């Protein structure tokens, strides 16, 4: 089961299931559509005619939006099995470095 109770691997034509969508690295339910430049902010339940389902079917480094962490080829299956939502990468704003404190 998916996070919201929808079956895992659903192809419901929503941004959250689209290969062009990147979830915001921090804020849930918000992301960016990368279908064309300039990218556009959309929300997880938005939809459009360019929808193509996301496929997470081979080992790789993914972003787990549920855990808000990067997962490795060794443990991505663990997150999928728990119904977590995996994406190739999250959306990180270019100015994030201006918002971070340097720590040494």
């Amino acid at each position: 089961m998916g996070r919201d109770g929808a079956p895992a691997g659903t192809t419901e034509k929503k941004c959250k299931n689209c290969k062009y969508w990147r979830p915001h690295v921090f804020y849930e339910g918000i992301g960016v559509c990368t279908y064309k430049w300039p990218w556009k902010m959309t929300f997880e339940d938005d939809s459009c005619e360019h929808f193509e389902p996301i496929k997470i079917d081979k080992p790789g480094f993914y972003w787990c939006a549920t855990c808000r962490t990067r997962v490795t080829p060794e443990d991505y299956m663990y997150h999928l099995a728990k119904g977590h939502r995996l994406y190739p990468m999250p959306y990180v704003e270019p100015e994030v470095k201006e918002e971070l404190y340097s720590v040494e």
Partner: protein
Amino acid sequence: MVDLVFEIGGPQGGGIESAGQIALRAFMLKGYRVYGTREYHSNIMGKHSYFNIRVREDRALAPNLPADIVVALDAESVFTHYNDVGEFLVYDTGVLSKDIDSIQSMSKYLKARVKEELDANGVPHTVEGVIKLLEKRGKRLVGVPLRSLLKTTAEKAGVSLVSISRAINTIGLAVGMSLIGVEVEKLQKAIELFFAGKQKVIKPNVIAAQVAYDYAKQNFGGIHREVIPDGPHINTDKPRLVVSGNDVVAMGKIAGGLRVQTYYPITPAADESLYLEKFEDFPLTPEAAEKLGLERGGIVVVQTEDEISALNMAIGASLAGARSATSTSGPGLSLMAEALGYAGIIEAPVVITLYMRGGPSTGMPTRNSQSDLFAALFQGHGDLPRIVIASGDHEEAFYDAIKALNWAEKYQTPVIHLLEKAIANAMKDIFNPDLSNVVIDRGKIEKNPPKPFPRFKYTEDGISPRAFLGDTVVWYTSNEHDQFGRRNEDPVERIKMQDKRLKKFETAAKEIPLEDKVTLYGDPDAKITIVGWGAVKGAALDAIDKLKEEGINANYLHIRMFMPFPSDYVKSVLEKAETVIGVEGNALAQAAQVIRMFTGFDIPHLVVKYTGRPIFVAELVESVKHILRTGDKKVVLSLGQ
């Protein structure tokens, strides 16, 4: 009197820094003094961080809780700060169903404590559960449909909004500000000031502020807290800056004629050196240019390979005639131990600005402490006195940075200038510093040194004139030496040379005025004396005011110089009081032990905090009352996340 606390929290990197900075400026535009404490994690992106902003009319020097308004725009912030809520919680209605166990970034220990409290109150482990609990407590809950407001903002901005985090924070901030009646124009002006020159950032955030205000007005018009009036510092012609402790020390060093700064990056010290790097080459004012016969000024800032090198390089610069300093925190000071001894025996003027974070070892790099007092006083071997000072706030830090440079050169010694993370990272408004009384005193310098030159000449006050490398030849050996710097282990000469070095500190003790060493605030005849140092000052000054309102007359003895120590004065104040309470940010009560060492006075009651968080005013007031009521010897403070 307005004494307000505004807290905003969220994921580290997710716009909290900008939101806090904008809030500070908005409250300043409203005419108030501000103090913004930042808490953040050492493992960087995505972990929880927050700003606690204190807003007052006369003086804002310390954080406080509870917060009148808590803005929590993610679920973790709600779970982390619901106990901070004094009146309002602003939250995102989109995260109501979020369960605490699904938040991976949150500490399991905090989760367990929160769940225990939610269970005890019979509410679920969700944001909604927390909201129910706060309703029971009579708090005012302000749910904001964040995604909908964000969508409206994007539509109105007419651009594809990809700087999402800042807009989210602006929305939360704006709702919070509207609840206390800070005008949207002030917030928008603050946005323009903070993002000056970045039109692409300003526009969507100004729109986000308006969208949020409009929403709040339509939906929460009736639940306004009594609005805060314009503060006393509105529209005055006295300019103010908003600076961090790191910034203000750098500014003091520039004003104090610093020429070389070395450093190895370390939290929470590095920002000072990064600030100084902006002044490697700058134009002088016409008056300064004429006086110095130069067109431009500049500070050489060098990032070295480690702290061993940082202090040795600063010593080298000093011997060559440059005013020099380095800046570090506890682990860096550990590496500097050997060079500190070298500076001591060759009498090299050098300033070490030491920012205290939670130790020992790597400890808690981004958290506050006052636990490096022993290290500052005693690090290094041999009979090695040095000057050790600690600043209590941003303004003290500015002038102390200048004085430290003067004392280093005047008494030809390392000076360790202590500051806490609580000051280094806190943002505070200050009036433009008064430079009219700033003096640069370089001490005894021999401009035309003979050859050979008796660099370590025996003198009445222990201070020998120094000459710069290049003007003559001086042997700076780490061995014991004679007046010409030549290695020498003759027993009679050894006594003379060691006594000469110690004599300098007797001279310093006599010459440095008492007001630079210690200050007694409040009624000198009060029967209760609170003793503290560093950032304890802010909390203690507010505490003695609050205690007075409750009929308890206490004063505050603020120690600024630990070596040479103002023994006679401190002893006289402590002996006069009926109850003495020592307050500090370390577990050993290091200052209390130092006071006993230098005065023989044993402080009977201690209030200590070593959670890595600053001392909040409310918990200090409570601890003093607790001690007066029970006579307890020790209270350990723990407020704040």
